């Protein structure tokens, strides 16, 4: 029992952590591109609107691509942790992009021209802007991780809640709920919050007290 719980916890952290990092590989560059002063406002709004996209929808769309008769069925990754990672990475993309955009725009407006005036190349301007956006980016990634580890729809639909393989915290919670075991479900939920909070506090120590 204890073993199983530990498995579920580490699995959740690894899957959602991987999904967050994966999402960051395209979300951060995208946010940097959008941080130009030009009229990226509408794209920004659309990203904000997509922050809460129903997880079930992403799960279903991904299913429609990964199922055996489907375009990418041959990959055989449906009902594996990989499928959850992909779905969660898509899920958190708008959140990570929209939130890190706040910091990146601010930093770029403030320090972009300075870097340029000191002789930085476009690439070096990006580097320095991202460097000074790190506290905000960490915040965005933390939110993304929290969202990923707390989501249910993707994990359930493309993961399948398979015991010992794709069962994560939220699918375990859902199972307890369907059994009517609300107390156990709540305990699991609080445990999940505790885990994310511990990670958050850990990251904060890297970030420093303020910002």
């Amino acid at each position: 029992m204890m073993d199983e719980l530990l498995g579920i916890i580490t699995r959740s952290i690894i899957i959602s952590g991987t999904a967050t990092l994966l999402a960051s590989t395209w979300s951060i560059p995208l946010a940097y591109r959008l941080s130009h002063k030009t009229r990226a406002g509408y794209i920004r709004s659309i990203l904000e609107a997509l922050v809460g996209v129903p997880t079930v929808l992403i799960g279903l769309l991904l299913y429609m691509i990964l199922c055996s008769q489907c375009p990418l069925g041959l990959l055989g990754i449906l009902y594996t942790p990989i499928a959850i990672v992909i779905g969660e990475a898509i899920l958190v993309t708008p959140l990570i992009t929209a939130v890190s955009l706040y910091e990146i725009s601010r930093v770029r407006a403030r320090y972009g021209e300075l870097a340029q005036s000191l002789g930085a190349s476009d690439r070096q301007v990006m580097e320095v802007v991202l460097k000074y956006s790190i506290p905000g980016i960490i915040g965005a990634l933390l939110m993304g991780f929290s969202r990923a580890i707390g989501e249910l729809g993707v994990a359930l639909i493309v993961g399948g809640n398979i015991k010992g393989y794709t069962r994560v915290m939220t699918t375990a919670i859902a199972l307890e709920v369907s059994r009517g075991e609300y107390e156990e479900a709540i305990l699991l939920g609080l445990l999940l919050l505790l885990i994310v909070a511990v990670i958050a506090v850990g990251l904060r120590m890297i970030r420093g007290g303020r910002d």
Partner: protein
Amino acid sequence: TGNWGVVRVRATTTTSLYATGLLDYLSNKYMKQHPDTRIDFMPVGSGEALRRAGDGEACLVLVHAPSLEKEYIDRGVIYYHRIFAYNYFVIVGPGNDPAHVSNATNIVDAMKKIYNAGEAGKAKFISRGDNSGTNVRELMLWKKTGLDPNDRKWYIVSGTGMGQTLVMADQMNAYTLSDKATYLKYLASNRIHNLKILYSNDTALINIYSAYLVKGCNGKELERAKGFIDFITSSRGQELIASYGVELYGEPLFYPANNKTSLADTWSKLVKGLDP
């Protein structure tokens, strides 16, 4: 009671039953006779449906999980037990039937065939693992075979609802136990591609749907809840159940209970874990 003089009847039910559309169909008919009544169905898991009744958050319960129901009857949570429909669980599996379940002589044989094929690496079986009526029945069947599939590599415990379990079995070429209504529904909506019914219509697989009232519920809500149970077990209600879905699926999803005492006996056996 609710707004504007409408009597709200809070009803919890299992998702698989609600998803067939039967309950909305029946309640629409009932509300034609009682326009001031609205039955609010809340589709949830079996355990959850009964738990909410225990919390006093429902007046009417419609489920198909006898042993679980018995617990709540004994605790004095639910009463006025009426069986309103039944059908059969079915063993479904890949069309090429690697375990040869379709040749099974009886249910024990069928389960053993799956077990052996599983051990031989030729088959998989998905268990819902959610303590639902279907899951409880599946475990009973394994017990009868004297085999323990737990922790076998081919025995996949998925912990999802009936519908998704069927989809997973279809995708993974696995066997599973399903209620017939959900299977037909999923077949009709093209969610299932190569999953076939391989074993069915065995009394051992009977699936009994029961309705209950909940202790603590009173007044008009209770009156109408009771009225609804009486309606669906009335001869008119039973006719409606018998014909439901025939047009769409080519065969009935449910059989009417028609107050058969044999069904009550079967139910009692199931509760005790005995062969029906």
